[in-house]
């Protein structure tokens, strides 16, 4: 996994509440057995006029000109600014894979759905929760200012606006450690093999029907 330390990136505003993972990456793209290649299909039904199919060439597909990510000013954005309950619905990890593949490594919202939030950390994406009022302010600034960027520092747990205003955010210590170092948590868990074996031995005695 790619580590996340700091980022100073262009911000794209996704001004809708309850954006679900079906919208982030529609079902037909879930047929792939790879982890990559989802970027061109991110928000497919909102982004294009036609119906997308896996592996199609998206370069000549008709784009919806009113969709925010199609606007020239947001090309190359790395920070996705979103509204409440972002990533709700299906557990599909294809959603963070598509977001990452499209170049975003940070999503900022007032709240996230649990499974999506967790999936981000497994893929080098930092999801940041900030208060509603701050999110409102960031949306206003982002829309008002072409080329609006945010600086994100995971170690310091801070988001800083171009004017120097800084907001701190919470992140679980373990997840922060893994993300800062790009760690594979399966390897870390396997270091606890003795504990797992010991647990299983006890459980086999208490509830043998489970094995």
């Amino acid at each position, binding site marked *: 996994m790619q580590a996340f330390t700091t980022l100073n990136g262009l911000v794209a505003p996704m001004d809708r509440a309850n954006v679900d993972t079906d919208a982030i990456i529609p079902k037909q793209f879930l047929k792939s*057995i790879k982890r990559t290649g989802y970027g061109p299909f991110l928000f497919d039904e909102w982004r294009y006029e036609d119906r997308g199919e896996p*592996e199609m060439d998206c370069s000549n597909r008709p784009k919806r000109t009113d969709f925010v990510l199609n606007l020239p000013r947001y090309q190359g954005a790395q920070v996705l600014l979103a509204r*409440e309950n972002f990533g709700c619905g299906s557990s599909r990890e294809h959603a963070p894979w598509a977001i990452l593949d499209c170049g975003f490594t940070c999503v900022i919202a007032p709240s996230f759905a*649990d*499974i999506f939030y967790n999936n981000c950390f497994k893929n080098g994406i930092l999801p940041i929760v900030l208060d509603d009022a701050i999110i409102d302010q960031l949306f206003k600034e982002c829309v008002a200012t072409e080329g609006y960027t945010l600086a994100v520092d995971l170690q310091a747990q801070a988001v800083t606006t171009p004017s120097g205003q800084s907001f701190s955010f919470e992140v679980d210590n373990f997840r922060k450690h893994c993300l800062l170092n790009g760690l594979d948590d399966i390897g870390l868990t396997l270091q*606890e093999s003795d504990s*797992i074996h010991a647990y299983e031995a006890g459980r086999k005695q208490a509830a043998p*029907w489970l094995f």
Partner: protein
Amino acid sequence: MGQTLFDKVWQQHIVKQNDDGSMLLYIDRHLVHEVTSPQAFEGLRLTGRKPWEASAAVATPDHNVPTTDRALGITDAVSRAQVEALDANCEEFGITEFGMNDIRQGVVHVMGPEQGLILPGMTVVCGDSHTSTHGAFGSIAMGIGTSEVEHVLATQCLIQKKPRVMRINVEGALPFGVTGKDVALFIIGKIGTAGGTGYALEFAGEAIRSLSMEGRMSLCNMAIEAGARCGMVAVDDVTIAYVKGRPYSPTGEDWDAAELMWSELYSDGDAEFDAELAYDASEIVPQVSWGTSPEMVLPVNASVPDLATAKDDVQREGWQRALEYMGLEANTPITEISIDKVFIGSCTNGRIEDFRAAAAIVKGKKVAANVKLALAVPGSGLVKAQAEAEGLDVIFREAGFEWREPGCSMCLAMNADRLEPGERCASTSNRNFEGRQGMGGRTHLVSPAMAAAAGIAGHFVDIRDWS
């Protein structure tokens, strides 16, 4: 102080508690399907890892499988490759799989309980958000992403932080025509799709206890639509009776010991919850979703909302977008909304009681002329066989329904079953998101009897007035 049901099960599964509040949680059962597992198996191959306990995992293909004649195989090459990848991965890693032509194949959340693979007090995971279904057994059942599918395969554990626990009491008797599905939609309508975020939900009270196991599964299935980590119901005689005698259930002395242990799986009288809500069952009316989120739901006797009643601008804009997408006018009575298609099935409502309820409505009647397609898709091969033994397939066919092979089908339209742009569907599934049942498709979530009645009438009807 007493313990909650959730705390009891959680505590029994802690392998190691870390200083930062996180813990290693042991997973008893891992259900696997073809969509969210290939990258996890590939991860095992790349790192040279083997499943920690292959027998804890059981797989079946469900999302991509055709619901038409299986003898033809899967015509969509990409879907076929994914199902074949599951077959090959299960073979390579020694995991039991009920393949596409096995009578036990079905929607993973129908197959698991049916086989006795889900037992009270277990921890259950699957790379599928509707894993919450299995909380109906007093188990902790959570949907996970593919990275965690790989984690569980490799270690039989998950790194977790304990969620908060919310109890939702529904007291009193459920009125006629109100099912577990209606209770779920009613609660989501009240607390919203983020109302359960960060929580494990326990559903309790007389109305919940009165539900069959299948009704409880429909309810817990939709806990995820309230944003919850999982939903649970305490173990009682109904639970025990359902589990007994299933292929993977314990027998003999093991059964006796298990039953004793399971009889403890309820929240103690003095247990404290982080949050508690109470509703009166008599207030619940059969539900119909009108918008593009499960929280956009109303009693069947209500009308599509007026934007002026939205609580704030964000909600108003969401409603406005939903009305446009759904092709609805504010203040339209729900019962005046006509439909193009009917879908009865899914992990929410694809079990035998669901088909019995729907068949009772359509028996001797015909699907309305404006309904282009009415699909009845059993949740598993065994549900299909049971329904056929009871003659339900004949009732559906005579009414103009298509009686199909088991799978996820038009719940998410990964196979050929889907809505075309603008088509409106009465669906027993769980999500009415934009495009969920096909690009541009319009989904209304309802119970099986309500979907069946809408199919016959051609528009939504109040099942309480049905004759």
